[in-house]
């Protein structure tokens, strides 16, 4: 090996390089067959058309279900595996920040106690004499606990999550999902072990809402934004009554409790706009639920549902 050894090797490497990535191969590699690209684009467009016009009966729904059966358990497993790690930042919180939290929570607690948010709503219901029947209805429901295992990315512009309970836990489409704070959304579709939930902040979500203080009804539309700025728009049917700030909005409920059961707190009024042109009023609602950090949720099922896990009955007992 003299001074030429290196040169030779380099020349050899260059030759090999040329042979491997010659012009013929480049042509083949960098120009895909046009028919393939056209075929794939057409396939995508066909899929879009099928799903867009097919609605709930489209063949895409069964494909969705099949893919869900495969990916659902994997998502559940992944979420369970990383759960210990997502809790790690909690350990490193300083004493100061915990103190702040306690002060903030105490203030909030006393404020809430003084407001007794749902008191107006309950009193009105009693006055309207449907309290008893409604309460009896309410007693007929039970909760299946579930955890959120996957969140749809904001790039997809739809606010949906996957929870780790499916048909085996007794879930069906169009069931109400809630958590400690209030209404979360409704079940869109289920697989054996998971379910997809449409959050109330999604732009496709419409919930019948009722202002607790005045019993006025309206429709809650999502704005498609999760996180701190997530808001709902309440369109009131009657434009003569103006809801106050901090009024509580609860669900109005539908027949047989599908998709929403009655009386679940949704959020509080933060501002009211009236539009003269449309002769309606629009109130902005701040949801009680923090959608950015959803974890444990409950799905409302009929009492006595067969489930693969403990069901929380209306009286608080576990079945």
């Amino acid at each position, binding site marked *: 090996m003299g001074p030429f050894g290196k040169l030779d090797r380099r020349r050899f490497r260059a030759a090999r390089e040329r*042979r491997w*990535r010659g012009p013929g*191969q*480049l042509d*083949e*590699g*960098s*120009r*895909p*067959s046009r028919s*393939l*690209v056209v075929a*794939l*684009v057409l*396939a*995508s*467009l*066909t*899929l*879009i058309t*099928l*799903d*867009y016009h097919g609605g709930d009966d489209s063949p*895409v729904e069964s*494909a*969705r279900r099949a*893919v*869900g059966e495969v*990916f*659902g358990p*994997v*998502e559940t497993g*992944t*979420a369970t595996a*990383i759960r210990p790690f*997502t809790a790690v930042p909690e350990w490193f919180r300083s004493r100061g920040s915990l103190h702040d939290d306690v002060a903030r929570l105490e203030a909030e607690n006393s404020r809430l106690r003084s407001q007794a948010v749902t008191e107006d709503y309950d009193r009105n219901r009693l006055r309207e004499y449907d309290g008893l029947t409604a309460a009896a209805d309410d007693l007929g429901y039970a909760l299946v606990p579930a955890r959120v*295992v*996957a*969140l*749809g*990315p*904001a*790039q*997809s*512009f*739809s606010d*949906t999550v*996957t929870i780790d309970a499916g048909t085996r836990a007794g879930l069906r489409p169009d069931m109400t999902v809630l958590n400690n704070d209030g209404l979360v959304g409704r079940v*869109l579709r289920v*697989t054996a072990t*998971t379910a*997809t939930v*449409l959050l109330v902040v*999604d*732009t496709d979500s419409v919930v019948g809402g009722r202002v607790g203080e005045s019993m006025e009804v309206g429709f809650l539309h999502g704005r*498609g*934004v*999760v*996180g701190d700025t997530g808001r709902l728009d309440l369109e009131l049917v009657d434009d003569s009554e103006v809801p106050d700030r901090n009024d509580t909005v609860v669900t109005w409920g539908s027949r047989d409790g599908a998709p929403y059961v009655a009386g679940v707190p949704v959020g509080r009024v933060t501002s009211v706009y009236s539009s003269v042109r449309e002769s309606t009023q629009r109130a902005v609602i701040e949801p009680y639920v923090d959608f*950015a950090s959803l974890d444990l949720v409950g799905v409302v099922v009929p009492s006595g549902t067969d489930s693969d896990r403990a069901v929380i009955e209306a009286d608080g007992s576990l079945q």
Partner: protein
Amino acid sequence: MSLFRGVVAALAVSLALVLQVSVFPHLAWQGVVPNLCLLVVVGAALTRGPQFAVVLGFLAGVALDLAPPADHVAGRWALALVIVGYLAGRVRQDVRPTATAVVATVAASSFVGTSVFAISGLLLHDPALGVPDLLRVILVAVAWDVLLTPFVLPLVMKMFQLLEPARTA
């Protein structure tokens, strides 16, 4: 070899998808997460050319459209990622792309991919969101994807390079 390559590519896409919906939401900024499936498609395009990347893009897109939390009209991500695979594949030269070229390709692909998805939504009225909201999400998505590029792309490109069959024989 071809079958093996296909299986490995499908596994890579599935892994990217699961990480994207189950792990990254914990780190999400305003709900936007890095689009790992798109990064895998770009990595495939840069190492193996557009022919392979458009097919992988279609598969990754269909998976994104159908796997559980998704509720948008199916086929929209498939269309977006086919276009991404085609464009990113055309960038490829007969030399190894430099780091700058990779980052630029990812940024452009992410912008085009997310935009195609958003525009298809505007046409179908699938999300009733305004253009400013869409733009904000698109820009955050591009930033996320570029941020993840140094961690994901070298791995993905290395993997596809190892899978590349010898063409000399």
